[in-house]
């Protein structure tokens, strides 16, 4: 310490106190480790909670990340961001501002509003576990900031969308979603519980910070922010930008942990990456795929979901894999194929079961279908006949008759990702079946089956919606099932126009003009 005071870095006196340059004191604040003398290091950081491989601290001692932030800097920066969000909310965050937005764009808000805040709250737990059981003090410091970030990401959408509940009850799902047994919530909880609340700090760092945040979230927020700007939704744009800057910072925990993990257990690092890239992909395909290719008005779309994935996820992810000397996931070919079809299948399926969700769906019309055909030349011809069929049924039923384009038969769910069983193409079913402990299982894809088989004890006890119905825990009747999902009729997802599209007028009969 004395050397610091005598060094050329001494910058002067502040009110009688010696002031040091930032770099002279920063590591004392963010990276301060010590040797334990009266307790064993393994007891302080048990492998069960801290994660494997268990390594002595010496192996983690070089842990570092580029942001190197102090608490004072963190608080100052966050305060400024909060002020910005508050100012925008006061200016354009009233219900009348939302009423001006396109109805299908409001569904983007409802979908993201529901899946975002309480998942972020689960991330608080994951970060706090790392803030205590991460293996280096700088990691623990960064995870503490990460926990504070995620708490903020919980509060902002809850605050912003709460004002809208009195106007539109579907916004109540911003808070309600993860507390329900809606099928999307079951799938969301299945992933979020494993990703955020159950993972040890090492798996959390690879799964959440490296794959989910660096690979998907960080860049997804950039894409969605640009879309919100084009749509004219300044509140959502500002909220996402504010959150994204936090994500960019605390996601840096991931590469720092991965670098050391690879040195000691490369196979495990590759396994975690393979597992979480697929699980993250499935989640984002639904949440972001719906938003980019269907719910954003076509005149405001700049690129397709596939183009976005290629540009913002694949290029960067590939570069990171090369940088770390890791392989692409073994299912890469299947992944690339699914970027062209999977979200289309889920959207078409969900449209015809829209009452089981809390947000409304847009029916793609001629302009949208032409745009999708151009963006997905290889796969759209497989999906378009489904929309033609739905369109014809709307035409036959007339406006407001939702049930005629709505399914009534229970659907099947993947026993790993818990999402509806849509995968492969309409021409080649990629579902996989297996038997575990005498129980028949079905998976939407080979990677989902592989993930289950690697750690069956982690997943086997979970009951999907079908298992609950067959066990008598959930009703088989669709109307009763909607109640089990937590949906009242006024909340049911519907077509955004109730079938009142200008292009959907009945075709004139023969002889009529």
């Amino acid at each position: 310490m004395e050397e610091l005071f005598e060094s050329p870095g001494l910058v002067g006196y502040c009110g009688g106190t010696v002031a040091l340059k930032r770099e002279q004191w920063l590591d004392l604040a963010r990276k301060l480790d010590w040797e334990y003398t009266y307790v064993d290091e393994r007891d302080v950081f048990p492998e069960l909670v801290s994660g494997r491989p268990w390594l002595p601290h010496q192996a983690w001692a070089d842990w570092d990340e580029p942001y190197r932030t102090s608490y004072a800097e963190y608080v100052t920066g966050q305060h400024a961001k909060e002020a910005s969000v508050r100012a925008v909310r006061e200016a354009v965050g009233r219900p009348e501002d939302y009423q001006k937005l396109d109805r299908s764009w409001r569904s983007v808000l409802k979908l993201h509003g529901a899946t975002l805040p309480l998942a972020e709250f689960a991330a608080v737990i994951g970060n706090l576990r790392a803030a205590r059981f991460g293996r280096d003090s700088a990691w623990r410091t960064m995870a503490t900031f990460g926990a504070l970030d995620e708490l903020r990401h919980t509060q902002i959408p809850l605050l912003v969308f709460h004002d809208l509940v009195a106007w539109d009850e579907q916004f109540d799902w911003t808070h309600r979603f993860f507390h329900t047994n809606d099928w999307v919530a079951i799938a969301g909880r299945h992933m979020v519980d494993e990703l955020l609340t159950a993972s040890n700090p090492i798996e959390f760092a690879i799964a959440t910070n490296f794959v989910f945040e660096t690979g998907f979230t960080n860049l997804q927020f950039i894409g969605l922010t640009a879309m919100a700007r084009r749509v004219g939704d300044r509140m959502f744009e500002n909220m996402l930008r504010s959150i994204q800057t936090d994500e960019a910072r605390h996601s840096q925990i991931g590469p720092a942990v991965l670098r050391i993990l690879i040195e000691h257990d490369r196979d495990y690092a590759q396994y975690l990456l393979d597992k979480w890239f697929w699980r993250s992909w499935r989640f984002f395909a639904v949440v972001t795929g719906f938003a980019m290719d269907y719910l954003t008005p076509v005149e405001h779309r700049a690129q397709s979901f596939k183009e976005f994935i290629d540009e913002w996820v694949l290029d960067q992810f590939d570069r990171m894999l090369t940088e770390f000397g890791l392989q692409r996931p073994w299912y890469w070919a299947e992944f690339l194929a699914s970027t062209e079809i999977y979200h289309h299948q889920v959207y078409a399926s969900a449209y015809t079961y829209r009452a089981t969700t809390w947000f409304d769906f847009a029916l793609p019309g001629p302009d949208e279908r032409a745009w999708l055909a151009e963006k997905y030349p290889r796969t759209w011809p497989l999906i378009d006949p489904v929309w033609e069929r739905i369109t014809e049924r709307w035409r036959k039923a007339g406006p407001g008759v939702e049930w005629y384009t709505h399914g009534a038969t229970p659907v099947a769910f993947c026993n790993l990702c818990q999402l509806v069983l849509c995968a492969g193409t309409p021409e080649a079913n990629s579902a996989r079946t297996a038997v575990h402990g005498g129980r028949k299982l079905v998976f939407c894809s080979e990677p989902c089956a592989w993930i289950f088989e690697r750690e069956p004890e982690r997943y086997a006890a979970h009951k999907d919606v079908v298992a609950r119905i067959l066990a008598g825990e959930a009703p088989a009747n669709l109307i009763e099932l909607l109640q089990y999902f937590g949906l009242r009729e006024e909340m049911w997802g519907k077509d955004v126009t109730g079938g009142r599209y200008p292009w959907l007028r009945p075709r004139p009969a023969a002889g009529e003009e």
Partner: protein
Amino acid sequence: MLVPLLGFLRGDTIGLVVLVHDHQSVAEVAGAVQEAATVRVAPRARARVYFKGEVLDPTATVAASGLSALDRIDVVQEEE
């Protein structure tokens, strides 16, 4: 006895849980899967049912075909 089957109709976008009786014919099962998917895919008069890669006899019953709860079947419509 009611048998829940996981039915996939080629051309559709999702797997469905179809309840059939064990005394129903395979042809009736094909009809039930098509009916369940009718919102998205127009049904056709004839369709084949595949189970474990083999085409089932349309006149055989569910029980005689070896189908049991939560088995996966694939239904492929035939040209009319």
